[in-house]
């Protein structure tokens, strides 16, 4: 037991510091990807609702393909394809090839996947807003922008939050898949620590505990947010 605690110590020769750094990377990627996913999701949802046939078609391909292909495959595909395309663009414009930082690549890859799910969550939330709320906004003379910003988006949030909370938890766990492209987030740090010390069970248990902490804290935050946005609705209990 004493031996185990030494292995988990924050400074070398303990591996605890590595694990925490991994957790911090995981959190940063998840947060960045989630925000990117939300932005893509907003664009995707309103594109599907108001867009012309071409835009709607493109978005349908996006959400269908992304949701159909396993995440691990997508991550490999998007990571190598994305970095290759970027470098091809750079070299064709006469710039040097560059190494893309694992952090930004991770955010881009997972965010792109999240965007497809967010699109559907937000589109569903839009359709759940009672039409009378929108009519009242139009009838009082609001511009389309004001009606969306002041009435429709806030009315969508209570319907979107359960789905969006799920997506956040999925984002935190999806970061583990980035280990396959060699980005040192929590899963890869754990693997290295475990491999170097042969204390597999303990390190994976520690990693599991860290993921659990992250998810419990997130659930708490989402419960607060949800309570705030549901304040206009009588409790169902």
């Amino acid at each position, binding site marked *: 037991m004493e031996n185990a605690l030494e292995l988990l110590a924050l400074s070398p020769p303990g591996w605890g510091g590595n694990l925490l750094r991994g957790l911090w990377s995981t959190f940063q990627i998840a947060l960045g990807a989630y925000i990117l996913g939300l932005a893509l999701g907003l664009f995707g949802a309103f594109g599907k609702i108001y867009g012309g046939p071409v835009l709607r078609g493109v978005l349908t391909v996006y959400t269908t393909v992304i949701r159909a292909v396993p995440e691990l495959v997508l991550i490999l595909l998007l990571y190598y394809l994305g970095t290759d395309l970027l470098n091809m663009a750079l070299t064709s414009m006469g710039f040097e090839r560059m190494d893309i930082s694992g952090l930004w690549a991770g955010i881009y890859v997972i965010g792109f996947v999240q965007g497809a799910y967010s699109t559907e969550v937000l589109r569903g939330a839009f359709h759940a807003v*009672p039409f*009378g*709320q929108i*009519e*009242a*906004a*139009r*009838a*009082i*003379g*609001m*511009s*389309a922008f*004001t009606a969306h910003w*002041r*009435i429709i988006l*806030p*009315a969508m*949030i*209570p319907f979107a939050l359960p789905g969006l909370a799920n997506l956040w938890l999925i984002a935190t766990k999806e970061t583990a898949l980035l280990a396959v492209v060699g980005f040192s987030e929590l899963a890869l740090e754990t693997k290295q620590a475990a491999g170097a010390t042969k204390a597999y069970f303990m390190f994976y248990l520690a990693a599991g505990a860290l993921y659990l902490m992250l998810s419990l804290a997130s659930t708490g935050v989402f419960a607060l947010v949800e309570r705030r*946005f549901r*304040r*206009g*609705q*009588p409790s169902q209990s």
Partner: protein
Amino acid sequence: MTDPASASGTAATLQVEDLHKSFGDLEVLKGVSMSAREGDVVSLIGSSGSGKSTFLRCINLLELPTAGVIRLSGEEVKFKGSGPNRVPADKKQVARLRSQLGMVFQSFNLWQHMTVLQNVMEGQVQVLGVPKAEARARAEAILERVGLYDKRAQYPAFLSGGQQQRAAIARAVAMEPKVMLFDEPTSALDPELVGEVLKVIRGLAEEGRTMILVTHEMRFARDVSSEVVYLHEGRVEERGAPDEIFTHPKSERFAAFIQNTH
């Protein structure tokens, strides 16, 4: 009524001429005209399917009329295209005219994520650009008048139907509209809550507001209206001063209608 030829010379606040509306092949309004001068209360009555609600919703363009002219204070709503492809030509004009037409819906349609006070302030601040403090003061005064000052911090879902409708009326009044449009304001209410809403509407009529009212409350229409318009299958079947047409109906259909609803 004045001579229709000089209609543009009269000071009609709201004027609708020969309004048509079709949904696909179904023609719901087959040429309905009306006008209201300042202070007029015009009640639209008729059985369901007569087109009275559709007519009202055409006035503020929640439905787009397929033909016809709408003028508010002499300003004509601009359209482009024709028939089912006829759309407003100027979105800014539509928004501005809507802000001058206070709409009260059958199902209240208060914004659920805002308190009663915020609902009444919202249009003033976001549409009219009234400073918040001023909008709040005006909203509180109006809520006081409709008897909801104590409920101003509540969310709509926690209020009774009658309270919600009074809040919705306050929201419309706060815009200081030129004309108020009521779309069956008491039809969604429990019978015991109808009275409190009618009382508020009567108060507004008595202070000289111009109103168009779609209603099933015959006695109320008779009491508050300066003109009653009876619609049947998308046409005006009978119209006139309430005391006159209710006591001496000219059309048999209207006579039967008031027999059945009294």
